[in-house]
């Protein structure tokens, strides 16, 4: 029997790498144009969600395990907050990126990149977590039990 979704599968297989790539473009171009961690995170999560829609939730969960999601959420927050802690250790106020490098504007640059990476991680993980949570929800009462 032929796969009824063969066109969807082929097209989305082509698309998913580009969606992910675009996410990273939005992430790293955020310094110069519109974009940043939040938008990039949503786009990256959309790549995984598209994969789950076309190939099924189980396939998506092997490609992007739920355990990563939980760690990613925490790690994102920690990366953001950790940047602030580093500035504390270097003797400045919380999240004063200026002290991260010898020249203040370089410091600002490094700081914002680290923070945006944290946002990317957290947003991607949270978006996927929400999708997994809704997608894998089992009805607690069977239809017949009503």
């Amino acid at each position, binding site marked *: 029997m032929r796969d009824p979704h063969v066109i969807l599968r082929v097209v989305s297989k082509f698309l998913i790498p580009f969606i992910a790539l675009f996410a990273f473009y939005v992430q790293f171009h955020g310094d110069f144009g519109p974009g940043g961690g939040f938008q990039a995170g949503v786009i990256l999560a959309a790549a995984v969600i598209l994969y789950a829609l076309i190939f099924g939730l189980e396939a998506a969960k092997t490609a992007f395990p739920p355990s990563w999601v939980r760690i990613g959420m925490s790690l994102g*927050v920690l990366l953001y907050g950790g940047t602030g*802690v580093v500035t504390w250790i270097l003797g400045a106020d*919380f999240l004063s990126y200026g002290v991260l490098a010898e020249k203040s504007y370089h410091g600002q640059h490094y700081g914002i990149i680290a923070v945006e990476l944290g946002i990317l991680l957290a947003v991607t993980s949270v978006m996927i977590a929400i999708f997994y949570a809704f997608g894998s929800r089992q009805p607690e009462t069977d239809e017949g039990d009503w």
Partner: protein
Amino acid sequence: MDILSLFPAWLLEQGPAFVIVLPLLMGAIVAIMPSRTLAWWAALIVTLLCTVTAFGLLLQVYSNGASLYTMGGWDPPHGISLVVDALSAPVLLLIAAMAVVTMVYAMPATIAEVEPKKRAPFYAAFLLCFAGLMGMVITGDAFNVFVFLEVSSISTYALVAMGAARDRRALAAAYNYLIMGSIGATFFVIGLGFLFMETGTLNMADMSRILSDLDGGSRVAKVGYGFIVVGLGLKLAMFPLHTWLPGAYAYSPSMVTVFLASTATKAALYLLLRFTFTVFDPSFNYDIVVIKYVLVGVGVVGMIFASLQAIFQTDARRTLAYSSVAQVGYMLLGIGIATAAGIAAGYLHLLNHAIIKGGLFLAMGAFWYRFGITRVTDFNGLSKTMPWTMGAFMISGLSLIGVPFTAGFVSKVNLTIAAADKGWWWAVAVIVVTSVLAIIYIGRILLAAYFGSPPEIDGETVKRNEAPLMMLIPMWILVFLSIGIGSNLFGLGDNFVMASERAANLLVGIGG
């Protein structure tokens, strides 16, 4: 001051950011911790550290005046600033201290009420809620308030829903709270939008300056003020907007109820004070109208109506929840009197009520822990089966009524005097009447506990079965605080009254 020199300078300097960042980051770490005991220890240590820091900040405010912390070194009004002054510092210490009390209590309570797998995320959600509340109180940026409001609210919804392991109604209560809370937050942020439109700034101090330059501003500012009052009213369970509260308090895990009852509505009330008296000014005619007629109106109606509802509840936790709504009415009445004495009384009642209601709910959780009871009719003979817990419940209950030598008496007397000075004799009458109603709803429980005899199960009288020490210690700490404030032991009463007066003076502009 002597004690102040014991604190490391770094902690005092960076303290305002420290009390938010520490629980926020530890929340993220605790969420992925494999060991539940380790998660509990981590959460306990975080709350302890925050309490110490908040205490240091409070002392610093009293000896050196208000301090301003700039996030990331960006000066206000462009950057986000954190403000510690005589108004916010006591509430900060209150929230942190109540978090420690509930964390100690959480060890036995959570084991009984939350599934093992969910315990580490439970503590993580608790820490996030704690960080959000601290942030709400300390920030000097109006939009930042909204962010922290949501941080604390969303984690609270999750915490309330965790009660489902022992009572499925927790899910409905959490959903109800989610809807109401989101509406409240939306109203608040719409109000902020209008204010931003009017003033072009989000920094509270800057907003206040621009608004007084505009002499209160146009209709946009008025609409914004209306939205903010309604939004915060939902969060602080102002009388007709309190419908989420009884369910959320009655069905969430005990430690969550304790923490919510003693901090969440208090933080929202603090924000109401902040917005009504510092961002807006009672000299604007719309502001004073809302204070005088709306806040006092709903406060007084809420005091009577919620007290009456408390009397007719079968579930003791719902009785206490309705009593909380009534107590919010006292605080609103204090704010509505709008003199320094009135605000001080309202503020003092805010602090006292947190301690009293915390004690009551701690005892209530212990009753459930030992016997699985919450209904008033099941309280028969509890004075014999759990004498120490019931003793704590009784003293806190008497304090709630306002019996002399307890905390409730001090704040109620101050409130009565402030109302009488203003010439509002009807308000004095309302305070007396609602205190009588409080005697009825607390008395009903005490009557069953002290004059009923323990029930018989299978022909055997229920034996004495006291709550574990980890529950009794936090309970009795709050009871002693309550008595300490009421009888002025170790100068506790004077210090609390002084703190409330300083806060009130800051608000009415006599100087901190």
